[in-house]
């Protein structure tokens, strides 16, 4: 298995820098919870995208959802 080392190093570096930058502001429990939801969610997506860049994204969900209505309005 070949590890893409460059992107992983950049990701780890940004993770550390971001946490260090925001560390002092994360005081109450609600902020820590909201921050960690966004932070952990974001990093999971980032790591997944490094290993599999062709992962279907949110737009692949939105397009089939709205294209029937668009076809109705604009014609085929």
């Amino acid at each position: 298995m070949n590890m893409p080392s460059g992107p992983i190093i950049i990701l780890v570096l940004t993770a550390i820098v971001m946490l260090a930058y925001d560390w002092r502001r994360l005081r109450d429990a609600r902020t820590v919870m909201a921050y960690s939801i966004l932070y952990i969610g974001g990093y999971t997506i980032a790591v997944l995208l490094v290993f599999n860049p062709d992962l279907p994204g949110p737009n692949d969900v939105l397009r089939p959802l709205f294209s029937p209505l668009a076809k109705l309005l604009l014609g085929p």
Partner: protein
Amino acid sequence: MLEKGRISAAQLAILAGMSVTATSLLTAPGIVAIDAKQDMWLSPVWVSSAGFIIVWVLLKLSQAYPAQTMIEYAVTVLGRLTGKTVGILYLFFVLTATANVLRQFTDFVKLTFLLSTPPFVISGGMLLVCSLVARSGVETVARLPMLLLPLIGLLVLMIYTPSIVDVNIHRLSPMMEKGLSPSIIGAFRLLSWMPVFSIIHFYLPYVSNREHLLRWSFGSVIVFSLTLSITFVIVYTVIGAATVNYVYPFMVLARFISFTEFFEHLESVVMMIWVIQIVIRVSFGLYGTALGVAQCFGLSSYKPMVLPICMLLMLFSFWGIENAEFVSSPAMVVYYTLFGMVLPILLFIVHLVKQLFSESGKADLQEGESAA
């Protein structure tokens, strides 16, 4: 209150107007020209009505709930569970819309100027600036466009004025050859920009002079439509029917200019306009999303949310997107319209119905009391 800063109605109008102009100036001519052809200058006129509706509805809602953004009054209007769900979906819309703009910026810079730079460096640099702007508070976000507006005006005029020599006004005829329908379809495609005006509701609670708000916001919509209309006239009269073939017709316009063989290579000017406007557009969306997330979770400060949202913006701008042209696809236009226009209108209708029933309920109660 999460934010202590105060802005004026004029600042908000300039912020909103410049944010919507940002991507539309460069890419809209090529997209609208597909259907509207020589009538494309009419499309912004039709689409401005959508802008008026959005702004009016949001202002009315803001009058009813003066200290709240849509994320908060959605809970008041729709109830806790539905309101929170609608709020989170709306935040997702703002996030994806801003991410799409970021992707358009990255693609443009990568295709035309920085050919061998990795794309994440371009969008990362942009996001670093925007996160600094958004963390500085609402006053910085709103005053930055006011500061940069004269510069943008000057640079845009530097593109328009020399191209007047090449204008061939006969390209606009036959006017309305197939009736109004081509220009209305063009206006439909423009609806992927107009709903961005709905992001102003994040800023409305912090406006100090509310009595001028309606005038300034409508002025912002009018100026945006006029700018687009003038751009369309100049682009179509200079480039002609070939506008459809270009992704960035405004760029072609700048390459066309050769004024007295001295005033040439104005692509860098286009780049300057684009970078400044994208900074304004992304910080507009970024501040809104950060504030909305903080209000949704009930936090005491929105500032820690800015950097994780930046990261999500960056990911959403690359995740499952091959190129930036999908933004103008009809499905995305419907998505933008649904969240930017239909959602505020629905909220407004529900609010009106609730008000009507509560008033009639009160009146019944009073009558009953007096009868008793």
